């Protein structure tokens, strides 16, 4: 069952959630529908901020900060740089055939309906959510888990980034053609 937050008796948290969710979804849509890529990027940044808001709401401050730094700070800047580097800001999206749009809308509706139906159909979680009271998401705990339990993936993530780096270099490096 969807249990829609009862706005009349909404707790402040509920209200904040609704607002944040609304912002998230609207900006996500706007990202997609904006004709100007720069606008899209800006909307996306807002969207990311609202997601960071969700993180804060869920009491994971560290993650929220990291999220803003990585996404809004790094990734989005990368996007913006690329857009500007390519001088795309004025570029209109090329003509999309109607069938493409239709297909996109159909598949969007389809997958949304399917997934929503799926989760509605599933057995509802009954009862109170556990609250162990333990600290599980402070920087201290996260650091311990990340660098202790998850040491190997952590190291492996560096390989991932290394590969990405080599790859990017490989793709962009001009070479002297010795032919």
């Amino acid at each position: 069952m969807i249990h829609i937050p009862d706005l009349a008796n909404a707790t402040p948290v509920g209200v904040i959630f609704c607002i944040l969710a609304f912002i998230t979804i609207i900006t996500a849509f706007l990202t997609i529908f904006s004709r100007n890529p720069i606008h899209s990027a800006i909307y996306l940044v807002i969207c990311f901020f609202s997601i960071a808001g969700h993180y804060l709401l869920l009491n994971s401050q560290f993650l929220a900060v990291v999220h803003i730094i990585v996404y809004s700070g790094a990734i989005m800047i990368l996007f913006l740089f690329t857009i500007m580097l390519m001088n795309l800001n004025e570029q209109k999206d090329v003509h999309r055939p109607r069938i493409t749009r239709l297909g996109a809308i159909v598949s969007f509706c389809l997958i949304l309906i399917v997934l929503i139906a799926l989760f509605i159909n599933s057995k509802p979680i009954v009862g109170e959510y556990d609250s162990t009271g333990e600290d599980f998401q402070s920087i201290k705990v996260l650091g311990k888990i990340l660098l202790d339990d998850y040491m190997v993936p952590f190291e492996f993530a560096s390989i991932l980034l290394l590969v990405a780096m080599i790859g990017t270099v490989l793709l962009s490096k001009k070479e002297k053609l010795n032919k």
Partner: protein
Amino acid sequence: MDTNLALLLVLTPFLGFLINVFFGKSLGKTVSGTIGTLAVAISFIVTLVLFNQINSTGKGIEVTLFDWIQISNLKINLGFLLDQLSVLWLLFVTGIGSLIHLYSISYMHDDENMHKFFSYLNLFVFFMITLVIGSNLLVLFIGWEGVGLCSYLLIGFWYKNQDYNDAAKKAFIMNRIGDLGLLIGMFIIGSMFSTLDYATLKTAVSEGSPLLSLAALCLFIGACGKSAQIPLYTWLPDAMAGPTPVSALIHAATMVTAGIFMVTRLNFVFDLAVDVQTVIAVIGAITSLLAATIGLVQNDIKKVLAYSTVSQLGLMFLALGFGAYEVAVFHVITHAFFKACLFLGSGSVIHGLHGEQDMRKMGGLRKAMPITFWTMMISSLAISGVPFFSGFFSKDEILLTAFHHSIPLYVVGSIASVMTAFYMFRLMFLTFFKEFRGTEEQKHHLHESGSLITIPLIILAILATFGGLISLPGNSWLNEYLSPLFTKAEGGEHHLGATEYTLMGVAVLGGLLGILIAYIKYFKQNNVPESDDNIIGLSKLLYDKYYIDEIYEAVIVKPINFLSKFFRDYIETGIAAFVFGFGKVTGEIAFQGKKIQTGSIGLYLFVFVIGLCAIVSYLFLAQ
């Protein structure tokens, strides 16, 4: 000793064949001819020895060489049975064979492939001997098909002419139709009695049954093929394409009698299948009449003789149909004498005229070829049933038997006999009397043939005259000789009463009537048959042999060929199109399918999403 004798008997011609095949060309014509003749002559001598032995002891000789074919319930060995019947047959096979070989030395001397001719002849004799002395049906079948092969080879001896080759092929295939019948007959007999051995079979066969009748019928079909009976007779006239000695040996005296031999051999089977016997008699009679009518108007000297042969064979089957085996055998023997003589005579004539066979271009040869004339005259008298020639006795016995069993068939046979007398003398008058009608050049070269040709003629003429002595009415050596073979003595011992004498008189009168008509028409009135274009009416029908060949062509050969073309052009391509259509369809799907792969990421992802939705909803929502 017996084994060696039998092997000597069989293998001498085969040896002659091998020598002629491998060394014939280098040996030269005369030597190869001599070897061929000697090979058969030796067989003849061996036969005489064997005949002597069997005639004195009265017991047959059985020789088993080795196991041949194994079938679960049958064990077929390669063995020989030399008894009264086979030795009798051997006597005239090898005897007449020797004479014809001798004759051929001269007759074929101008042919470049003479050694081949002799090798084929030797091979033929080898197979014929095998046919006759085989101890079971399957050994008979070796010979049976073997002589068919030799007949094929010899009819098509002048292979450059495709018409001759056609004739040869026709002979082989029509024979094979009969052979299938024979095979089926063997299968039935084999499965019924678990043996194909004559001796064992004779004891095993006890009572008639529908199956046995069927077997007998099938065997008779085989005989029809080999002995040129309706409906399988049409190959024999065509077979005259071969050299004349071949016609004499194979298509008159020996091979064509194989059917009669087989039926006689299996008399104990046929005796139990009465209805089949009736069929045999009727077919024999009809064949006899039909062939005789066609013979009336033929102008090719050998064709006349060929139809006469068919007609005479019909008469023999008439006798077989009444169970009068010894009568049939008797006629086989006399027929062998006079028909061989006639053929060889006609060969002599053809030889003298350098290949001319049309009687309309002959005439007056009496003076130029006296020996040929007289020998042929004697034989014609014999075949026409003029008293005291051999044919008189044998034919008379057949008619007598027929009269005792069935008046209508007797009438038919008698009419055929009258006709025989007519066309034989038509032949004689057209060929030997009056003026020569050929070209001047031919006339200039007319001469009597050499002694190698005339000697066999004379010998055969003598035999044709006196051959009847072996089975005189009332005192038959032949019947006695053959009696161990037959279970019931039928048709043999007629008391010569008034009826018999009357019938004899009727027959003689009929024969003389035929001769008289021929005399009036072709001697007195000096008629010469019309040229082909002018033949009309009934004679046209007869001259064209009732269009039987054409009917066969239209009803059997053409449809098969049409079917073959149809299968080749439609069914084959149809099946292929169907089978490989799967491939085509798949290919076409592939071709269309390529269009789906448009290269558009949007489409790819669209399908991705749809697929995902489908899987998830099928798995979780469709319950």
